[in-house]
């Protein structure tokens, strides 16, 4: 597993096209490896994002971040697979979880990039600070492209179709949010005189 995992990590960052093809075709690299990738990225992400004043709260914060990321990963994959299976006439939920799990790997590079903000590099002036922001932006774009590639490779779709599919979870989220707002509004109307 470890060899496959490390090779896939390297491949996702260097040659994602062929790596995602291998993930889809090869059953050796599956959901568990993708789960490990997500776990690694979210733990690093929680260290990067943590803004509390006490170290003792950090483990609880990390656990909450990991759980949120896992729910988000499964929800997004489920919505995309639900819609994609209409066009592809076949569910590839496992494959999608595997590819999208590895697609978030560029985010782990925020570990060193965040040093531009937190560890004195910003003390060198505005330019290193701006470099940090630009690098963060590049990581975001890189990860977004990998995500679209993961969707396209899993279902053998075009990039354009993958973009439309990837928007679906956000639309689903918006609809769910508007339902929630309506529900809250009804509760307020009935609860208050």
């Amino acid at each position, binding site marked *: 597993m*470890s*060899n496959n995992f*490390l*090779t896939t*990590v*390297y*491949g996702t*960052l260097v040659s994602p096209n062929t790596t995602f093809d291998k993930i889809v075709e090869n059953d050796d690299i599956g959901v568990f490896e993708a789960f490990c990738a997500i776990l*690694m990225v979210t733990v*690093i992400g929680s*260290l*990067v994002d*943590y*803004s509390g*004043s006490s*170290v003792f709260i*950090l483990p609880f914060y990390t656990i909450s971040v990991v759980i949120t990321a896992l729910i988000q990963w499964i929800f997004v994959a489920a919505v995309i697979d639900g819609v994609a299976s209409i066009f592809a006439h076949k569910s590839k939920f496992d494959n999608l979880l595997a590819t999208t799990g590895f697609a978030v790997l560029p985010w*782990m*590079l*925020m*570990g*060193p*990039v*965040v*040093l531009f*903000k*937190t*560890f*004195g590099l*910003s*003390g*060198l*002036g*505005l330019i290193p*600070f701006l470099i940090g922001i630009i690098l963060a932006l590049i990581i975001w774009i890189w990860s977004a492209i990998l995500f679209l590639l993961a969707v396209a490779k899993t279902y053998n779709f075009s990039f354009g179709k993958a973009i439309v599919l990837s928007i679906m979870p956000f639309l689903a989220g918006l609809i769910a949010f508007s339902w929630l*707002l309506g529900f*809250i509004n009804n*509760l*307020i109307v009935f609860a*208050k*005189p």
Partner: protein
Amino acid sequence: MKKDILALAIIIICCLGALIGLIGSFREPSSIVDNSTVKASEKNLLSKLTGGDKIAVIRLTGVISDSTEDSDFFVSTSPAIKARKYLDKAAKDKSVKAVVFRINSPGGTVAASQEVYEAMLRCRERKPVVVSMGDVAASGGYYISSAADVIVANPGTLTGSIGVILNAVSFIDLMDKIGVKSNVIKSGKFKDIGSSMRPMTKEDKELLKGIIDNTYEQFVGDIIKGRIDRKDIADTKKIKKVKKSTTSKKDFKDDEEEINETQLTPEILRENADGRIFTGQQALKIGLVDELGDLDKAKIIALKLAKKRFKNVKDTIDFEIYDKPQTFAEILLEIKSSVIPKSSMDQAIPFSVKYPNQPLWIME
């Protein structure tokens, strides 16, 4: 194999970077931009971008209570709970160099007021706290203010009302008229003390008076603790030599104001702690407040105190509204409270009637 080693190296570098970054994030924000080779304009911009030093402005508006009426969807909207929470947060936040506490309250329940008072004392131990009084800061509102380093009131602010009130409504005559009787079975003679269904006995009155007197002593005792028995009183008096400023915090003029040297003493306090109310101007004369002025003046005093207490506090420091809604639920409730106003009938009922048989620190 080579690919695996490279992947492992990348992962290790990323983990180390995050860990070092985490250690860096625990440093004082000011030290991040504390480099003499960087231009002042760049430092200012960096300070803003990295969340630099600030003076927190915390607001307490309305009746001080811990009531469940002030909760929606598991989130408390009680002004007292929010004020306490943000005072504690500001006390721990290293980037907050001083607190301006804007209060506009006629008072409220005893325990809720005491909790905010204690939170302010905790905050004052770590950083300066300046109270700015709005329209009203009376009774429990004044009690909380007394925990601050400096109290700034507007000349027309209504303050004082130091005292305790308990209201026991009686429905006996009304019940007689409509032919309703109440049958009470109780374990002790005082179990239904203050009941609106029976007349108050002499013993009831004596017991309730004891509670009122005890709460009153707590009230006065805490004002003495907060404003009179203070070790740093001399320092605060010095700071009160505040320079006048224009609306801009950067533009200080040199002319000094007349300093109020009236010192509140326990004797003056007890003499005036009979429930009477004062304007800000009257309160200044007996030393209940330290300065006359608006919120801007309170901010300038807070800046002065912060500069005295901490190193590297700049005149260009940001004043941040610290009690802005932060979580999703808080934002929703903020929208809700602005869209759906509270019932006007609810506001017309005196607070002591809403909280019967309970000692209150409120201006009725």
